[in-house]
């Protein structure tokens, strides 16, 4: 069985801090996905350095096949010692999901992982092992489709402490909330954002501690094929469309007026262009049987890129981001499919130059498709989505 994951995280910085003292690493090996969350002692720069070092060391060493003992050793040896407290300290959690369905969880001093299956909370047994004086919990198990696993820093359980709640937000209550949100949300990013937002509210929007929620959902693989631009040689049109529509499991997006006309001609399906200008800045979308989404090209892709960039820069992902993402304009629709409903993406890019776009009278440089595609590819990679680009 091939297991695929949808993974995302959201952090809140301690009020007034510019840096977050929690760090998250999301990695892929040939046969697994790894999620690491580290919480450095203190806040601000110091905490940020401690947690960054910890998560990077763990990530790099795990990628290269080091054992947990070796990793912990290295962290203990490497972390700078705090002058105030005389210790070097960062908590961490590691979650590794193998494509075979095997899972490995390691926890050190973070709040326990929340494990949800079939809408119910699953218990994670304690099996503590001591490495270099650190009590570390290890758990090996199997995952199945639909499971959700949530890692958190202790900013979550401290939310509201001494203010709205006497003892903060208890783990059990967070877990209940997570189970409820699990049923309501479709993607890892919405689940992580929902829990983080609840913490922010309990903190009355002035977090007393760095707060991070990282979420992994076990899902089916969801490939997306995106075609944009006509082939530089018109003889390649049919081959390009055949490749683009070649995978029956992949959802299909066409971004481009001329491109969709080509697809329509090759597939012999009529193109129905909407006149509904839902967003004044980008042209309406169109409909074609057999293609999941048809939009205009560069202006829409430019919007998609802006949204994906906002997503990569976690700070601006909150409720208003999802409101934007849920809008029915072409840019939001493409971005939403890529962010929430896609595990890997294949771009089919035509290199033809549209002579009409070489018109200096236009207020926007339309001849930037390849530049956009390149930026799109980089941003998708930053999002942790495997990208393939084929040029025609």
């Amino acid at each position, binding site marked *: 069985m091939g297991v695929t994951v949808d993974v995302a995280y959201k952090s809140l910085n301690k009020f007034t801090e510019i840096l977050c003292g929690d760090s998250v690493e999301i990695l892929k090996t040939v046969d697994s996905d790894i999620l690491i969350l580290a919480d450095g002692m203190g806040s601000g720069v110091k905490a940020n350095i401690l947690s960054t070092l910890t998560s990077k060391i763990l990530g790099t060493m795990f990628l290269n096949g080091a054992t947990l003992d070796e990793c912990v050793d290295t962290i203990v040896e490497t972390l700078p010692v705090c002058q105030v407290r005389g210790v070097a300290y960062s908590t961490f959690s590691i979650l590794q999901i193998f494509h075979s369905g095997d899972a490995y969880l390691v926890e050190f001093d973070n709040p326990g992982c929340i494990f949800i299956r079939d809408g119910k909370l699953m218990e994670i047994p304690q099996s503590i092992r001591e490495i270099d004086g650190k009590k570390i919990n290890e758990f090996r198990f199997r995952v199945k489709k639909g499971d959700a696993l949530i890692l958190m820093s202790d900013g979550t359980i401290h939310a509201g402490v001494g203010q709205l709640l006497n003892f903060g937000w208890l783990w059990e209550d967070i877990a209940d909330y997570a189970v409820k949100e699990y049923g309501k949300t479709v993607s890892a990013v919405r689940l992580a954002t929902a829990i983080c937002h609840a913490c922010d509210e309990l903190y009355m929007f002035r977090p007393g501690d760095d707060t991070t929620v990282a979420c992994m959902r076990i899902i089916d693989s969801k490939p997306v094929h995106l075609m944009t631009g006509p082939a530089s040689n018109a003889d390649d049109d049919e081959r390009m469309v055949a490749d683009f529509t070649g995978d029956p499991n992949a959802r299909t997006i066409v971004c481009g*007026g001329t491109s969709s006309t080509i697809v329509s001609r090759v597939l012999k399906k009529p193109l129905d*262009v909407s*006149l509904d200008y839902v967003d004044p800045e980008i042209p*309406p979308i*169109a409909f074609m049987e057999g293609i999941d989404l048809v939009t*205009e*090209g560069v*202006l829409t892709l430019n919007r998609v890129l802006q949204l994906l960039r906002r997503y990569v820069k976690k700070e601006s992902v909150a409720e208003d981001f999802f409101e934007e993402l849920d809008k029915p304009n072409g840019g939001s629709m493409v971005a939403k499919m890529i962010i929430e409903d896609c595990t890997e993406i294949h771009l089919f890019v035509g290199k033809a130059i549209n002579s009409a776009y070489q018109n200096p009278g236009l207020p926007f440089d*339309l001849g930037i498709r390849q530049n956009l595609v390149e930026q799109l590819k980089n941003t998708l990679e930053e999002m942790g989505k495997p990208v393939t680009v084929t040029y025609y």
Partner: protein
Amino acid sequence: MKVTICIGSACHLKGSREIIKEMQELVAANGVKDKVDLNGAFCSGNCVKEGVCVTVDGTLHSLKPEDCGEFFNKEILGRL
């Protein structure tokens, strides 16, 4: 009568949106909704023209937003 307005990238930048809005209003105001069928289209390959590509029963025109009223009277109402 079939009227097709291009909303491809280049035409969009030249004002497709204004033209569509104005056309829809003109069609409604003149009570010819059942006779004029407004459609969208992606690039027809004539982007080099100065205005937005508008096709009336197969004949291609290049239309600027400010000329909409005159165009409607001449090419659409005038031909009905």
